[in-house]
């Protein structure tokens, strides 16, 4: 790192000869010195519209670096724009060489990105068009997915069984600790909040009903869905996205594999199989959390609690939760895999894909959860 000398004095002077400008540089032109003079000088050039030639004098120039070169190029570009011929022969050899290098490849037309201000209407229009493309992609992916599911059912779909097993291991047993923690705490919170309200009416007895129904019908599946969207959905997007960056997906295609069958299907199957099991486990952990509050704080005996739970929760309530969990599994795998497949070919694109997989996954889960709940309510299930 060169020493930055802020106190270095520098000066630029314009000398008007008969037919040309001579620009004189004085003192130090290094990083940290001032470039004020250059702007004033360029402004003053306009006063002499008849002079069409420019030369430089650097006899008094002491020290220079990229700062000097950059200012020099500003002057030269300005002169070129005004159709003033620039003669650089009077500059030292080193500077001439650098200038030749800088101007050897002309700036490509349109290479510089235009910074345009877009109006509100334009940006709304653009995002609508983008949304249309996005929707088309989602539907196309869904179509491919359905086709691959058919070939899987027919028995022609190909993936490695060992991959399926790895994914099951990955999203099942490996995610038990976090599922345990979260669902236990959710059950606990549910019981606590509910109990405070219920005790106003002296109805703490119904705590078990609240927690049992809440966990089995709703919170168990929802919590597992959100955990898995963050954990597994993101990991699917990152895995497939990195494979895309590495051309591994192209390689698979050239070997005659359908990436949909080979990469997406086993991941989706794993989630569809594992999600209901995780949900059942989460239901149980949630009730345990509820029991902890009921027994510890509200003087309900454990026998009472379990009897109430047994009475309140019917088998169909558990099934509703499991059904939701399977649907969430499909949606998580869908959003994780599509974001991975759409991933661009750079490291930051993989990060974006993972983020977007989680966001899409959670949105899908919440929307579908509302729809299913309304539907079941109407059907009286």
């Amino acid at each position: 790192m060169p020493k930055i000398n802020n106190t270095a004095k520098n000066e630029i002077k314009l000398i008007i000869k008969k037919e040309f400008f001579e620009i004189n540089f004085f003192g130090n032109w290094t990083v940290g010195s001032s470039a004020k003079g250059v702007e004033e000088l360029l402004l003053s050039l306009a006063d002499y519209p008849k002079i069409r030639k420019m030369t430089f004098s650097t006899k008094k120039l002491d020290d220079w670096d990229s700062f000097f070169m950059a200012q020099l190029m500003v002057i030269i570009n300005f002169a070129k724009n005004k159709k003033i011929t620039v003669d650089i022969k009077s500059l030292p050899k080193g500077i001439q060489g650098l200038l030749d290098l800088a101007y050897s490849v002309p700036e490509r037309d349109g290479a510089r990105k235009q910074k345009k201000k877009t109006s509100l209407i334009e940006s709304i229009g653009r995002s609508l068009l983008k949304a249309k493309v996005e929707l088309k992609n989602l539907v196309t992916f869904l179509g491919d997915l359905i086709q691959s599911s058919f070939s899987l059912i027919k028995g022609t779909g190909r993936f490695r069984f060992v991959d399926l097993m790895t994914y099951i291991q990955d999203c099942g047993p490996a995610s038990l600790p976090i599922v345990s923690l979260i669902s236990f705490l959710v059950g606990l919170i549910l019981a606590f909040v509910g109990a405070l309200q219920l005790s106003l009416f002296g109805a703490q007895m119904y705590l078990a009903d609240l927690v049992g129904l809440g966990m089995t019908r709703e919170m168990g599946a929802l919590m597992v869905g959100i955990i898995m969207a963050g954990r597994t959905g993101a990991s699917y997007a990152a895995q497939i996205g990195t494979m895309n960056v590495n051309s591994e997906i192209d390689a698979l295609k050239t070997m005659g594999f359908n990436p949909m069958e080979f990469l997406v299907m086993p991941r989706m199957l794993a989630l569809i199989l594992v999600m209901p099991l995780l949900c059942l486990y989460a239901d149980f952990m949630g009730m345990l959390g509820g029991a902890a509050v009921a027994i510890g704080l509200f003087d309900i005996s454990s026998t009472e609690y379990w009897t109430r739970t047994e009475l309140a929760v019917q088998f169909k309530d558990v099934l509703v939760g499991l059904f939701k969990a399977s649907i969430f599994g499909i949606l998580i795998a869908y959003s994780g895999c599509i974001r991975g497949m759409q991933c661009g070919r750079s490291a930051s694109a993989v990060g974006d894909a993972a983020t977007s997989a989680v966001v899409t996954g959670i949105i899908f889960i919440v929307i579908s959860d509302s729809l299913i709940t309304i539907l079941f309510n109407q059907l009286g299930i």
Partner: protein
Amino acid sequence: MTEACITIKKMTMAYGDFIIQRDLDFKINQGDIFVIMGGSGCGKSTLMMHLIGMIFPSKGNIYYGNENLWGPNASNQKLLLNKTGVLFQSGALLSSMTLGENIALPISEHTELNKKNIQEIVDYKLSLVGLAGFSDFYPSEISGGMQKRAGLARAMALDPEILFFDEPSAGLDPISSKLLDDLILSLRDNLNATIVMVTHELASIFAIGTNSVFLDPESKTMIAEGDPKKLLKTSKDERVIKFLSRSKKK
């Protein structure tokens, strides 16, 4: 007259409205070591992706023999592409599998061989590229040059008639790159394969190339074709000479 293996007719490559190359018209003959060359960003790799059926040409056609690659019969395309093997720039080995599993993958997909026979072929292919005994290594455990050679072993797994290479010597030291050139030559001679490679490595181009096409990024089309050695002597196009002679005057 040698038989044309791949024929490209009036092809235009584009991403949306952005044209990369237009009016491409050339033939790759059986037994050629065909070089796709040109400066950076001229669309060499994109052309290769078109040839292996990854990207649909926006205009024009690609023929394998007499069959149109993008003809109406979709299953036909799969059959045609089964004759090809591709080595990607980075090797593109599946990182979750060992080298052995990587090479076994296309074999188990396209043949009915049992596990033992597949493993024997895998060992043979690995020894061809000088990686005997590395079957149980993961791609992340070996060097870049080795990954590339393993990728080559996978590309050759099904004894393809046409082998595609994307920048085979990029990132290799001169000796490994020379070894790879020799390997490509002997593959062509011993397996009677046709080789198509994307490269701008002059040493390789002159050492093994027998036919070529030169893509120019500014005029967005091909400006020369033929044997690179002859091109250097006979071409009158300044851009081609500049490229092939590293800008020395003729």
